[in-house]
């Protein structure tokens, strides 16, 4: 059995708005083993970022964690004091976001920003901190680190800014890096560089990564294990090969079928009808039922539980689960 670094159990994070309650994260359980890259994939609004923010204690009013545990190395982060939480957030877990510009301070030189991150969490002097910044800049592939140290964020390209963000996330040698759509704003050649960097960092430092993306290509290239989210819930999970080779949930199957293959031109794309439902007006039964081609009567009235298919593969659906053997 792999050793788990992060374990989330039955997490519920809801938004309490005047119009009603939005169950952004609804009974999510997931695990990130040590040294592995675990992906969360799903479409806009399905709760990927809110899951990440729950871990980082970054949920903003009117959102909050309603129940559940977030265990890091067995310690429940939801039960820590504010001060301990801050420490964990800076040192053991760090996060990089989709748009590095909004998470960097525009009027402070990037080198200084990364140096401050070190000084806040570690007892070292300024000279040592600067030396470490330059070292980590080199580690994340920032060319001419001394020169970049003196740059303001707007003087850097999108790819370099994302490298600075990764450097900032790396300086305290976290056990877990949460990357929320880290390459969505980048060009494809730069995306490939950043993905390779994240993978190399995990391999060389033993760090784990929770990688959030709506791009199935990114997930397939990067992850060991994958969770598919739909409307606040995990609808399927499994190791990356099982999930791509034998998807069982109709939503996962639909997503995979709509991928465009580069080696042949198709006349039409396979689609999933309809669109992602509003979390405040979910169907009574399965959240996917009004888009699902295989929906049965029970799907419209009852909520399906996660069905364990064995070997770490599970799906949330009323369709029969036994037939896995037919693939063997």
């Amino acid at each position, binding site marked *: 059995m792999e050793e788990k670094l992060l374990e989330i159990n039955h997490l519920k994070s809801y938004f309490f708005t005047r119009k009603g309650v939005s169950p952004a994260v609804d009974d999510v359980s997931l695990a990130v083993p040590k040294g592995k890259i675990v992906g969360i994939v799903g479409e806009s609004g399905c709760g990927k970022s809110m899951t990440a923010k729950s871990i980082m204690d970054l949920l903003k009013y009117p959102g909050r964690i309603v129940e559940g545990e977030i265990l890091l190395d067995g310690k429940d982060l939801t039960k820590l004091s504010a001060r301990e939480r801050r420490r964990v957030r800076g040192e053991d877990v760090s996060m990089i976001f989709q748009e590095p510009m909004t998470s960097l301070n525009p009027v402070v030189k990037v080198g200084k920003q990364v140096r401050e991150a070190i000084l806040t969490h570690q007892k070292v002097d300024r000279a040592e901190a600067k030396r470490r910044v330059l070292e980590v800049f080199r580690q994340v592939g920032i060319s001419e680190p001394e020169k970049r140290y003196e740059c303001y964020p707007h003087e850097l390209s999108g790819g370099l800014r994302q490298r600075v963000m990764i450097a900032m996330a790396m300086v305290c040698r976290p056990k877990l890096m949460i990357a929320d759509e880290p390459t969505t704003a980048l060009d*494809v050649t730069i995306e490939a560089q950043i993905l390779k960097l994240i993978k190399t960092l995990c391999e060389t430092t033993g760090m784990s990564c929770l990688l959030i993306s709506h791009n199935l290509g990114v997930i397939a290239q990067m992850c060991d294990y994958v969770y598919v989210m739909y409307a606040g819930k995990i609808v399927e999970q499994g190791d990356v090969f099982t999930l791509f080779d034998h998807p069982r949930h109709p939503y996962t199957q639909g997503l995979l079928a709509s991928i465009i293959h580069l080696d042949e031109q198709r006349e039409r794309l396979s689609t999933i009808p309809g669109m992602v439902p509003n979390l405040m007006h979910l169907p009574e039964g399965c959240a996917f039922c009004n888009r699902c081609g295989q929906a049965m009567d029970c799907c419209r009235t009852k909520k399906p539980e996660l069905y364990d298919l064995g070997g770490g593969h599970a799906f949330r659906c009323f369709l029969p689960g036994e037939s896995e053997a037919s693939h063997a």
Partner: protein
Amino acid sequence: MREEKKVLLRCEHLVKEFPVDRKRAVHAVSDISLEIYEGECLALVGESGCGKSTLGRTLIQLHEPTSGKVFFRDAEISAMKPAQFAQYRRQMQMIFQDPYASLDPRMTVRDIIAEPLVTHKVCESKEAVTARVLELMDAVGVPREFLYRYPHQFSGGQRQRIGIARAVALNPSLVICDEPVSALDVSVQSQVLNLLKDIQANYGLTYLFISHDLSVVRFISNRVCVMFLGKICEIGDSETIYRDPVHPYTKFLMNAIPIANPHLREQEKTLLEGEIPSPIDPPKGCRFHTRCPYATDRCRAEEPALREVKGRQVACHLV
């Protein structure tokens, strides 16, 4: 027998520069010549800032060219006075990336789709306008009962459908689609792509399809034009280029696409190093030479011209 292809839009040595200050300018489109054939879908691909949108806009005179000529059929539209160009205007429409920003939030769906019909006075009466709007809503799959709704009451995919209805309202010949599905969710993206293909067939449209997403382009286009920093690297049939890209930049671009197949990930990828150079001070010689691992002295000094290689046009000294 080979079918004779008719040119719908053509540009010659088209240049568009945006002045930065007295001395410097952004070289967004630098000496581009190409043809768009009737009924085809030509895709413009390339990374952010390479000049795709600027080229699209300059072609339909939304930007005044710095130099060069644009012909619609045989008429030189780049030389026309606004009054003369007006009759060509409605032949060329545009669909934008951001379905949120491109529709006026204070207008109903009816008025949004009707606007071009009213501006160009193509319908006899108000009733005729509404009838045409309903027809267009059917064509793009927006339910008729939403006629008097406002844009904020729609999802991104539906807004994009409304944008498409508006663009085809005047039966244009050419539609420039500028990243029309980039803001959409995966499952909605494929719906809208199918719709764009249907609409193209049903209305006999020619598309200039701008996208940085090579998968989307693979599906929709007949021909591709790969751009780098204001220049064409490679242009030709999609089938030919996707099967066997020739220009080093095209190869890197294709190679960088994250393939949704975990079995293909252990293959060592050769990645493009470095960042995209500034269009204010583009590299001399081949504009790609600062990132190209094969660059020679000649590449640094002399600009490669487009020439025929393996059934497509390529601008590279080494192929």
